[in-house]
């Protein structure tokens, strides 16, 4: 039995889809003409063989290291700042501070890394530093919110007991709350780090360092073979990170 409201909803969705295709005026014809197919094939053929000269591979290795460093530092900074902001956000310093910080965190979180990178380029200049900051800012929003939720869901008894007996708020937090949630915080952080490695790989497209910057550079010079190597390096890096984290997770959950 389907309710009328559900039918209306489905009709609305269908209308959204139709309107989307209608308003975009995608050039289907141009996509599938013999000419278009030929030029796309030519474009793709330009990628083979990937550039494998030793000096270029060294450059790629440096780019990969830069990408990994950006993601690790960005996540590290976000961990510290996020934890700092999660304290007021979990209502430990009053309702006003909580509402205010929650607003800030939501703002940080809903603007993606790449947009932050574009904005931060003005202050930090071209290069990986802007990328690191962009990752840190966005991840602070994400982690701050997750940490605050974790802190709010914590059984309050241990901390309250300390507070009633005269401990200061920070002391109560360090003695009672932190030991309980630290494993959870770490697992959130590692998960975000994994995400940030992917993000760091593409931030360079707007000039914020790492492999993405190399990709953009070689593509804009139409050096397709170099671009192909960079893309392969990205794929390898992402695969290795995914594999490692899958393996770690299985190890951690099995024991």
């Amino acid at each position, binding site marked *: 039995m389907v309710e009328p409201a*559900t039918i209306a909803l489905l009709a609305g969705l269908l209308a959204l*889809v139709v309107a989307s295709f209608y308003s975009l005026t995608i050039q289907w014809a141009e996509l599938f003409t013999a000419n278009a197919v030929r030029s796309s094939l030519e474009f793709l053929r330009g990628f083979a063989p990937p550039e494998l000269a030793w000096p270029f591979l060294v450059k790629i290795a440096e780019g990969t290291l830069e990408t990994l460093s950006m993601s690790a530092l960005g996540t590290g900074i976000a961990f510290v700042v996020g934890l700092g902001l999660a304290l007021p956000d979990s209502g430990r310093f009053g309702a006003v501070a909580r509402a205010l910080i929650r607003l800030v965190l939501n703002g940080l979180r809903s603007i993606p890394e790449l947009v932050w990178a*574009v904005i931060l380029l003005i202050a930090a200049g071209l*290069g990986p530093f802007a990328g690191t900051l962009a990752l840190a800012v966005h991840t602070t929003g994400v982690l701050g919110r997750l940490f605050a939720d974790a802190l709010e869901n914590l059984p309050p008894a241990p901390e309250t007991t300390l507070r009633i007996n005269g401990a200061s708020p920070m002391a109560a937090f360090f003695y009672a709350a932190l030991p309980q949630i630290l494993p959870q915080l770490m697992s959130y952080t590692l998960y975000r780090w994994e995400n940030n490695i992917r993000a760091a790989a593409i931030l360079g497209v707007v000039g914020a360092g790492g492999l993405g910057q190399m990709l953009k550079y070689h593509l804009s010079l139409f050096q397709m073979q170099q671009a192909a190597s960079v893309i392969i390096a*990205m794929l390898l890096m992402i695969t290795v990170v995914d594999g490692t984290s899958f393996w770690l997770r299985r190890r951690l959950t099995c024991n």
Partner: protein
Amino acid sequence: MILNAASAHHPDPAWRGRITAALVALFLLWPMLIASEFKPWTLLDAQSLGSTWHFLSGFFPPAHSREFLLLMLEATWQTISIATAGLTLALLGAIPLTLLATKSLSVSLLESGRMRLAGAVIRQGARWLLVLLRSVPELVWALLLVRIVGLGPTAGVLAIALTYIGMLGKVYAEILESSEAHATQSLLKNGSGRLAALFYGALPASAAELVSYTTFRWECAIRGSVVMGFVGAGGIGQRMDESMKMLAGDEVFTMLIIFVLLVACADLVSTFLRKRLA
């Protein structure tokens, strides 16, 4: 217990361990700080402060002329429609690939306990195709497609379609495989076709999960389509890129506000859809 008394005054019981850990971490981080050119003091030099101040002071008041807001409305709609059209194409591509990749729909596996060779090869091939499609970041697809089909929303739609075929296909297959297999298997054993087995067996059991994952992905596609605008794939991202290049702070601020609202709305709509359809 003198030592204990001394440390009892410190708010953090494990501060020694924490500080040691922090120092070790800093030591390990050192090469990373160098590799990523981590120089916070560059933020504070006069030139950087000047340009930041100049840019930020342009933020107020946000741009709100009539033409600009109309332009924004158009760009926002374009972003939404790129995401919607991309996801629709992704669905069209992902469904057949899911059918190929799902193990529990294998007839030969049921009959003999082993997949036929041809079936296994096709199934593995479909899986690898899905892995390839989703491993390349959507922004990279967009960057390449912009060079093939030219600047504009077509590249964005195709980039979302390609990446999301990979994601949807993988997760759909996982959902179908983890659903209760009994109904599907008895249908297949009694000679029903694969599609019929899917529609009457696996699909009803996992429909809610499939719908909720798809709406979640739609939300992600909206974020993605904003980001892809920065490489020239249309929508509000492309407008933001243009305004950034002209350092028009007031326009950028308006777009940031629109963007935050857009993400919040997409979040609300997708939560609503999940509740309604699930």
